[in-house]
């Protein structure tokens, strides 16, 4: 496995060690380790079914690992549900976006973390106001605050999902195929946003099967195949073809097959 040339003196923001999970006898993720430093983007690459989403869902609390340890800032973390993950400032943008289509943008943004009045009632006014502020920053064209999100375009829905992750001061951001449903213009916006968040010191796991995305946006890339980690490489040290070889053949550059 290629060791990161980043200084070992720094504690990683996230460290997942020997993560395992199986579904009905199939080892979806088999002893996989990965780490992420503050202000860094780590790409997770692999074919469909390679286990990248599954690995990340153990971090976001959607799945519970069979075994393995997660360390946040060097401290052991117990994450058994999405609420736990949120407590560690882990925010996730799911591939499916995980929006309640019948609710408006503000309700979705604050879902599970509603702003309330002193009487304990949900404060729709305050939430819409906050939503307008963050949307003005992320997607200034966004105007449909009163509509259910089912009435929004793919890009608008994506920006609601991103706003939800960004609003709550995420320190660890997981993005699962954030540009899969987007056009070139919107993809560019997401790329700019990633750069901005990185500069703010947020660590980002970016799941993708688009090598160009990864080469352009990521600092390091971890490649998975059949539930196992092929290797982790510095993006600057490898070519597109090297990454492709890791994804398809399970070979790390120079080391031969794992």
């Amino acid at each position, binding site marked *: 496995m290629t060791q990161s040339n980043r200084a070992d003196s720094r504690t990683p923001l996230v460290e997942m060690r020997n993560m395992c999970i199986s579904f009905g006898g199939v080892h979806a993720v088999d002893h996989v380790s990965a780490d992420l430093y503050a202000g860094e983007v780590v790409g997770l690459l692999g074919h469909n079914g390679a286990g990248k989403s599954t690995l990340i869902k153990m971090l976001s609390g959607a799945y519970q690992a069979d075994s393995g340890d997660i360390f946040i800032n060097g401290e052991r973390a117990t994450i058994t549900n*999405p609420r736990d993950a949120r407590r560690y400032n882990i925010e996730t943008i799911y591939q499916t976006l995980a929006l309640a289509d019948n609710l408006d943008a503000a309700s979705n943004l604050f879902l599970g973390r509603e702003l309330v009045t002193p009487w304990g009632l949900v404060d729709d*006014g305050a939430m819409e106001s906050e939503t307008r502020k963050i949307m003005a920053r992320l997607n200034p064209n966004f105007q449909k605050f009163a509509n259910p999100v089912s009435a929004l375009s793919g890009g608008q829905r994506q920006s609601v999902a991103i706003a939800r992750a960004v609003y709550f001061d995420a320190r660890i951001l997981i993005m699962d195929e954030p540009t899969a449903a987007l056009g070139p213009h919107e993809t560019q916006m997401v790329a700019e946003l990633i750069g901005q968040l990185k500069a703010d010191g947020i660590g980002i796991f970016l799941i993708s099967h688009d090598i160009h995305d990864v080469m352009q946006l990521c600092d390091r890339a971890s490649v998975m195949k059949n539930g196992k980690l092929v290797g982790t490489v510095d993006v600057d040290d490898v070519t597109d073809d090297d990454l492709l070889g890791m994804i398809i053949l399970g070979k790390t550059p120079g080391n031969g097959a794992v």
Partner: protein
Amino acid sequence: MTHSEATPASKPARKSIIQLLELDLRLLGMVVAFAILCIAFDLATGGRFLTPRNIFNLTIQTVSVAIMATGMVFVIVTRHIDLSVGALLATCSAVMAMTQTQVLPDMLGLDLGHPLIPWVTIAIGLLAGTLIGAFNGWLIGYLTIPAFIVTLGGFLAWRNVSWYLTSGKTIGPLDPTFMKFGGISGTLGATGSWIVGGLALTGALYGLYAARRNKKKHGFTIKPLWAEGMMAVIISTAILGFVAILNAYEVPARKLKRMFEAQGETMPEGYTVSYGIPISVLLLIFVTVAMTILARRTRFGRYIFATGGNPDAAELSGINTRWLTVKIFALMGALCAISAVVASARLANHSNDIGTVDELRVIAAAVIGGTALAGGAGTIYGAILGALIMQSLQSGMAMVGVDAPLQNIVVGSVLVLAVLVDIIYRKRTGEA
């Protein structure tokens, strides 16, 4: 995103009056349908349908189903169903009937008519309903048995628990205070009704004002003042008109005479007493307001709709959807208990067949009221209006003299037709 820029330009700048008033089109449609129905029956019965007396009867007949329908909205919105509400009502009614006629007087030695009896009875009934509902919710949420199956089983089981508890006998007479919750034997009278009407009016107007102030505070667009004024006029007319109609229904002179004679007095000439708002209707109004606040202004309500719209998203947002299911069904159970108070009090006794086919009437009311079986959409006021439409249809046809089998055929057809209209409406407006 180009789409959102293009829309304002392509739309005419002038908004329609309905948009300006921010009226719910679906609600408007239902109100119009209901009005047409009432007028048609009034014409067909030669003016007997829209009399204060009949309107009074309609409201008290609707209460029991309407209370349960508000809970059914939550159940259906989260993509569940409850087929056991009628049976649950019967069990709660049986528990309360036994409590007030046998358990409390015989075992605890409270005399019949003791002032504590009705309140202890109601508390026990509510507890029973809530626990049974929570049990259903646990089976559905935690053991993941489909709601259809759990409540189909409950439909048989609880109906017969009720039978078992009472040995199938009719239990009565019930406590006189308890019976005040039934309708005609417990009303507020003219003055009381006007006071309630005044309070309701104040509350509604304050609600309008507070909503406007809140929008202003956050700098959102507000309706023009005349539109707010028009809403205020519509609401005031509705509230005060309702009170006036119920107050116009007077206690029959013969009944009054008998009451005076019973006290050894003679009735003064020209003496009249109004019934006014029945306590059961007041109860329904409280339930409606409370359930609407729950649905719209609390996290609980927000989570119900989010879960109905996308259960996975709700789960990933950290909502404990299993516990939510338990709470929803517990609430449904509590509402069944309240309905049981109203239903048994109206009959003045507990009978073995109380609440039969209520499950279907409750589901029909919620669905006619615009609750989508696919989940995620539904309103409390819609369900109440749905219950009112069902009841009007039923009693209207009875008054016109439609044969009983035909009545049920019509009601069944209307249910199916209402859902078809709803589907077409949703397609047109592009709602999910």
